[in-house]
């Protein structure tokens, strides 16, 4: 009913305006005013409005600066971020200057040179001198911007220094997992065929190979059972057959990882996986590696001026050195609930808007303490009461599954 009334009132409004227009046009025809061109009064009015427009536009800009300028990102919490902020400010000064100057000319000329039947416009077709001037001046400014910008870019995207703390960020719809390289400082091998509930990153270790092989085999057995029970010649049977074949192919791929050398297989055991929050030490270069499990995501850490896409099938990287701890930033921003965050910045599905992780920056000693408390991957996949058995296995027992 409401809908109908609204449609009705819109229709009536259109009709009313239409009638008004007819009256208006009829009277203006009576007055003989059918010229397509604006009247002198209209020209004058619109030209003055150009100045009003300019002042309101500038006023709006300044008001926005005053009202929201203080609610932008706080000072950079990373070393390269300070360089970027300086570069950004440098660029902003230039473009704001250009913005004001060009707009003043644009609106002032529009105001000043309003039509008058008494005069003619100045017939001015071109000026090589002027045109050269406004080709070369922007070119000179741009040369500075390019050189300044690219030197920062090259510094930032260079190799991470040796001895950096390596962390992998691994997104999926719609959360993140962070992985630390552990005591051996290298990330263990991984593959998406190895992903399971207990192994969300698909790490390849002796333990996970064993578990995964058993898991896939059990799935195949289950599917086989259903296949045997399904009626002959049915669609379900065909589908099941396909599924079994697919699982077998996955099993083959998993088995092929068994041929990795022992060092590679051991690489993942000491890795540390964390969810919902990860911790980094202040003053130490952190080298991030990114993969993705399903679609493209983007790891955006605005407070550190850091961002990199996470692309399935690729490893991408970014590194930075945090300079301000979370506790210090709480004081700087005067917000007790301040937290550094990692958020997803590439459209990735329905819950894209809530795919986040908290980042804690702490002093190095505190970081070491925290690390020591974390479970390694080997510990996490071992059944709770059999940790000792896994330890024994690590000490050199053969993994029989791989030999198959």
């Amino acid at each position: 009913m409401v809908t109908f009334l609204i449609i009705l009132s819109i229709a009536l409004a259109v009709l009313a305006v239409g009638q008004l227009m007819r009256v208006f046009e009829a009277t203006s025809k009576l007055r003989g005013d059918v010229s397509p061109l604006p009247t002198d009064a209209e020209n004058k009015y619109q030209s003055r409005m150009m100045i009003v427009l300019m002042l309101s536009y500038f006023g709006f800009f300044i008001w926005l600066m005053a009202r929201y300028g203080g609610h932008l990102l706080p000072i950079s919490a990373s070393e390269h971020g300070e360089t970027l902020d300086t570069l950004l400010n440098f660029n902003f000064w230039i473009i704001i200057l250009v913005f004001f100057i060009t707009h003043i000319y644009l609106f002032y000329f529009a105001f000043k040179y309003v039509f008058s039947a008494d005069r003619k416009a100045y017939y001015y077709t071109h000026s090589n001198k002027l045109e050269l001037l406004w080709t070369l001046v922007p070119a000179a400014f741009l040369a500075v911007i390019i050189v300044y910008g690219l030197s920062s870019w090259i510094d930032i995207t260079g190799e991470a220094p040796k001895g950096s703390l390596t962390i992998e960020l691994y997104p999926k719809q719609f959360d993140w997992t962070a992985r630390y390289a552990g005591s051996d400082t290298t990330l263990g091998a991984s593959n998406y065929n190895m992903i399971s509930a207990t192994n969300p990153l698909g790490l390849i270790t002796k333990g996970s190979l064993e578990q995964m092989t058993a898991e896939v085999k059990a799935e195949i057995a289950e599917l086989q059972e259903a296949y045997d029970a399904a009626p002959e010649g049915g669609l379900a049977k065909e589908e099941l057959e396909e599924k079994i074949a697919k699982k077998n192919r996955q099993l083959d791929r998993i088995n092929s990882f068994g041929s990795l050398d022992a060092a590679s297989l051991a690489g993942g055991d000491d890795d540390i996986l964390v969810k919902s929050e990860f911790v980094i030490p202040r003053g130490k270069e952190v080298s991030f590696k990114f993969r993705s499990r399903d679609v493209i995501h983007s790891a955006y850490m605005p407070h550190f001026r850091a961002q990199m896409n996470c692309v399935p099938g690729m490893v991408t990287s970014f590194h930075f050195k945090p300079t301000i701890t979370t506790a210090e930033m709480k004081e700087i921003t005067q917000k007790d609930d301040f937290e550094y965050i990692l958020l997803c910045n590439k459209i990735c599905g329905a819950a894209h808007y809530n795919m986040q992780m908290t980042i804690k920056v702490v002093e190095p000693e505190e970081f070491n303490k925290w690390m020591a408390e974390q479970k390694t991957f080997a510990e996490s996949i071992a059944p709770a009461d059999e940790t000792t058995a896994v330890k024994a296995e690590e000490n050199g027992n053969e993994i029989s599954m791989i030999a198959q």
Partner: protein
Amino acid sequence: MGATAHTDHHHHEETFISKYMFSQDHKMISKQFLITGMIMAVMGMIMSTLFRLQLGWQGESFWILNFFLGDKWAPDGILDPNMYLALVTIHGTIMVFFLLTGGLSGTFANLLIPLQIGARDMASGFINMLSYWFFLASSVVMVSSFFIETGPASGGWTVYPPLSALPQAMPGSGLGMTLWLASMSLFIVSSLLGGLNYVVTVINLRTKGMTMTRLPLSIWALFITAVLGVLSFPVLFSAALLLIFDRSFGTAFYLSDIHIAGEVMEQTGGSPILYEHLFWFLGHPEVYIVLLPALGITSEVIATNARKPIFGYRAMIGSILAIAFLSFIVWGHHMYLTGMNPFLGAVFTFTTLLIAIPSAVKAFNYITTLWKGNIRFTPAMLFSIGMVSTFISGGVTGIILADSALDINVHDTYFVVAHFHIVMGLSAVLAMFAGVYHWFPKMYGKLMNRKLGYAHFWITFVCAYGVFFPQHFLGLAGVPRRYYTNSEFPMFDDLISINEMVSIFAIVGALAQFIFIFNFFYSIFRGTRSSQNPWGSNTLEWTTPVEHIHGNWPGPLPTVHRWAYDYSKPGKEEDFVPQTVPLEEGEMDGGAGH
């Protein structure tokens, strides 16, 4: 659109179908493109208003959401996150392709190219007609995707795989995405048929005396736009084709190492980055496919209404050519953070920033054209001045985004949204309005109401900046685009009032467009009849009769003797000298000789 039906100078019988539907006359095809584009634009605008309701008042209930989207996509009047993404996606697709590519080029290239170069019609009327019908078919397919169970494509207008390739990733990647790809394939065919026609017509059918350096800048812009389209749209077609293969035939051009919905995908070896390269190889020239016609229209309207030659005619042509050339070697600036080699990023930063030079030349030349002009503030002129303002305001922030180092922190935030909506969206839409107000007398033989035009301009322009200017601040605060809500992040709480303000401007601005639509249709049927050359223009289209006839000129084709910008030339009685007036003895042609 029946205004011109009264008289028919032509000999052979025309039925309603051959005149209004399967017309091969460029003037009618131009109107068909315009009206279809307007219908698409209204849909795109309603979509944006709907998602602005959600963004302005996050999580609140609006009956109008439920009215448009039903219980499935807006239960209890609260927008569904999947539908939010679908609205954003289709809004972008419609505005970029259907309004500002098909609608803008389709309308003005069809109307202006034959009329301004002095040709009787397009090189091929039949191909021209096909171009419109493919455009209409693709529009219908695109809109139809709202009426399927899983909803329209919703991976963003760039539809990056794997998100767009895997129906498991989101509902919109099912049938909706198939329809999107089908629609875009039809669209590309339309665009290529149209573009080839425009190029051939401009090269071959110019009338006697119409040298390339006497062409109005509108024609230069539309001509180069068509060249860009012909060179870049096929690349989008290949991107779409490979995506269709990946989606339906198990290939792996874009897919590798994916584990989704508990399943291991067997496709390996592909790369989503390949898609991004192919997409943006079209995608960046596309920006100029949208922008160049807008700049061309602005050049005409400003020169005519400032009663002054466009300043630096040859520099304007040079900058169109420079922009067009550079537009093919800057696509990587959309991909600085994809993991592309940083060195490549540096190269693209360099080429991208170079574009600022010809763009600056254009802006300065427009401003100089106003200097010491004799300015008549028609609605078209107001929209053109507005366009120069948005072109500058949006252009300068491009310098930040072009800089790969600075892009790190503003990439994919609202800063980008503000930038491209102002520089590309607003500039092109404002210029399109300017074009419609300016050439309406040529299209329909009537004048649009000026008072309504003023009201339309002021509300639109104020709201346009009200919507997009504050979004720079959201971006600098780190708010990502394409977020259904910002409420999951306490750090964005201080900015909620910006979102509300933006939404209010968006709604008022959207409502103001009905002033235009009313004025448009009212004027077609009841507008004041126009004289042959209402604005006192120099270009050839104003030498044709007010009532449309096949072949445009009743007698022989006009001969051109001078450039298009002899406004207020010293020694002339009138303040304009049409291109058909021969040069007097000793008189220099204004465009010649540098």
